[in-house]
């Protein structure tokens, strides 16, 4: 990506994101009808489910970046991986916070061991461990290698985690948090959902650019420091 495009993105992304967020907010709160059974609380759905999709997408980016890093050895893929992992965790936190806040009024309990929510929790733990591992390794190239391995293994595990928890849940059924993104969603609701998804995706892109830039600066700082300090 050329320098000009990069700088352009830096200026445009916040603006586009803000615009999309405003539109999404308007659509979700003023246009979409209130859900019949759950009432107003269902509007959490518009932030809960798109965030889950974005966090999953982020972890996919970690996976691809990790593979690219191991294949090419170029540090920028490592920068991409850590950026995507961090942002993925941000969206994951949103899913895990809005989930119980939605569940309590609807089901009377904070946590229902719902397959999707529980999988998100396990995912959260895997990528927190990913970030903690990165913090525990000082040498940049070793750190990148080890992180890439975890990034790949972690993502390969994701579908398996989801399936296993789902099958576990069918043996011991419990309430489900959302009736699935596709299960009989009103076309009006789809609009709200899609606008939110677009806004969050734009937000992801903006976060990613900034976090990547931060990582690039850190790499520059680290290499300058190493140059300056005499080798033992």
């Amino acid at each position, binding site marked *: 990506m050329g320098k000009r495009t990069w700088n352009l993105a830096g200026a445009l992304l916040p603006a586009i994101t803000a615009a999309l967020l405003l539109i999404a907010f308007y659509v979700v709160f003023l246009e979409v009808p209130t859900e019949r059974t759950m009432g107003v609380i269902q509007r959490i759905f518009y932030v809960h489910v798109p965030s889950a999709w974005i966090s999953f997408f982020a972890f996919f980016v970690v996976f691809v970046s990790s593979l690219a890093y*191991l294949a090419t050895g170029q540090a920028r893929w490592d920068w991409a991986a850590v950026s995507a992992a961090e942002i993925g965790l941000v969206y994951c936190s949103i899913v895990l916070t809005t989930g119980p806040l939605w569940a309590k009024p609807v089901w009377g309990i904070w946590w229902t061991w719902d397959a999707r929510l529980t999988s998100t929790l396990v995912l959260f733990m*895997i990528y927190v461990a990913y970030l903690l*591992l990165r913090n*525990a390794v000082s040498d940049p190239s070793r750190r990148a290698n080890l992180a890439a*391995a975890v990034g*790949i*293994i972690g993502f390969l595990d994701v579908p398996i*985690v989801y399936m*296993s928890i789902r*099958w576990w849940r069918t043996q011991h059924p419990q309430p489900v948090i959302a009736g699935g993104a596709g299960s009989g969603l009103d076309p009006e609701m789809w609009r709200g959902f899609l606008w939110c998804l677009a806004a969050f995706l734009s937000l992801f892109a903006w976060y990613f650019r900034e976090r990547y830039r931060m990582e690039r600066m850190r790499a520059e700082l680290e290499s300058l420091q190493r140059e300056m300090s005499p080798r033992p």
Partner: protein
Amino acid sequence: MMVFALILIVIFSFAFEPTAEETRRIAGGLLWIAFTFAGILGLSRSFARETTNECLQGLLLTPAGPGAVYLGKLASNVAFMLAAEAVVLPIFAVFYNIGLGSRFPWLAGILLLGTWGFASVSTTFSAITANTRMRELMLPLLVLPISVPLLIAMVEATATWIAGEPMREAYLWLQLMTGFDIIFTVASLLLFPYIVEE
């Protein structure tokens, strides 16, 4: 490691009345918790030992390549865990009044699949965390979430076995464990050279 698993099982007996009907239902889970935690403790030493005297670099010089080092480590870790399980299992059966005789091959199969999967993940992450800060904490932090599918499958399959239900019902879990084992062993083999790279 054996001793630790036994201690856990004894403590579980205090926490959960072993003769009660409910405990029979969770007995499978208790057994696997004991094996899992003991396993992590035991296996964390697996690569830690290699860091002294640069054993690992020496091992990697063999013409067989890093993949062979991984498989060798894995095989020895599996053997190590199975040996511990072989001792702990009969004692567990005595405490929880579970007959081991009937349909034992099924239990052996579950144990083998589960132990292989768990050891393959633990061996890989043991190599990854070998030279990192807070190594003892990082290993379980990484292994346990990744192993969730394996743990669920092992507990469910064991529960089916303990309850005397037809093993046909546990096929799903056995397939999951087999798939998990294959995927993680292959992935670990492919990633191992990068993990031990200097």
